């Protein structure tokens, strides 16, 4: 399984999908989100692997 973290939420998904798919499945816009694995930036075509912890970061801020 893959653990996904976004803000204060955490959930698990099956391994093997792309990061872009993970973002879309969370109902988020890939234009507004970046993904990190082990603290490193990864591109949207990266395939998730068993045991991955993926942190999704919103890039939108400001007032």
């Amino acid at each position, binding site marked *: 399984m893959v653990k996904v973290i976004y803000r204060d939420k955490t959930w698990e998904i099956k391994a093997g999908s792309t990061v872009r798919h993970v973002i879309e499945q969370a109902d988020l816009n890939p234009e*507004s989100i970046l993904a990190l694995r082990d603290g490193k*930036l990864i591109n949207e075509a990266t395939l998730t692997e068993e045991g991955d912890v993926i942190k999704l*970061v919103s*890039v*939108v801020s*400001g007032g």
Partner: protein
Amino acid sequence: MKCSKCGGLAVINMRQHRLRLCTSHFTEWFATMVQRTIEKYEMFSPADKVLVAVSGGKDSLALWDVLLRTGYEAEGMYIGLGIDEGIGYSDKSLAMCRQFVTEHHPGAVLHVVDLGEEYGQDIPYLAHTRQRGRGKPCSVCGLVKRHIMNRVARDGGFAAIATGHNLDDEVAVLMQNTLHWQAGYLARQAPVLLERDGLARKVKPFVRIYEREAAAYALVRGIDYIYDECPFARGSTTNFYKELLNQLELQSPGAKQQFYLQFLQARDKGEIRFAGEGAVELRPCRRCSQPTTAGDLCAFCRLWES
């Protein structure tokens, strides 16, 4: 996904530029884009001393970092606004700025102005007690920050104040101002506001950088920044417009960039004009001597009287 330049592993895909880059080529590309923007809009020269307004967020810290890395004499300025709201927002923001200096640029100068210590009241108090702030603390906050930034820039002999406003910030404002046909604001929205009559020059070196790219730069450079939104900005209309524009960008890569850059081009060529263009007369405030359009006291000094 491979880097368009070296074939290594790409960390970012920038569809509007048809460019996929690895960490090393992305940081190089980023610095080049910022440098080109500084030159294109004649923001400042390598001999100038620049004051970077830092908040502890990704944009301002990324800006300070890239300016220092490319050799500019850039000093940071943090304004302590006294915003806590149960999460210690201002304290955390200042800690991020100090951490940035320690970890990335030891020796860089960070000026800190604490509103409460220097003026006796903080933003939450002012927003709660003043007519201007009722229900809109961002209005008071903007006024206070503009005043203090200008004062520090003038006193310190800085050639310009640089802010981390990125292309998404600018496009969101452009969209709001267009939807409301705010001619005066549309006339003044620009990458550079020239100095005049006691007002320091203001520049935005990230106007051609997407917010996504600024965040990516901070992440690949290992810059720790405050992820929390300012508690007073949550649910702001600017963020609502940014999300809308990102929906558009998803369907049509480059839409944000086109909207903003073509607006600037059309205005510069005189293809579009707005009422309210041209300089408004400024006079020195009787109390603080900073420039104001009002007759006697500037809006900042009036804030402490009301």
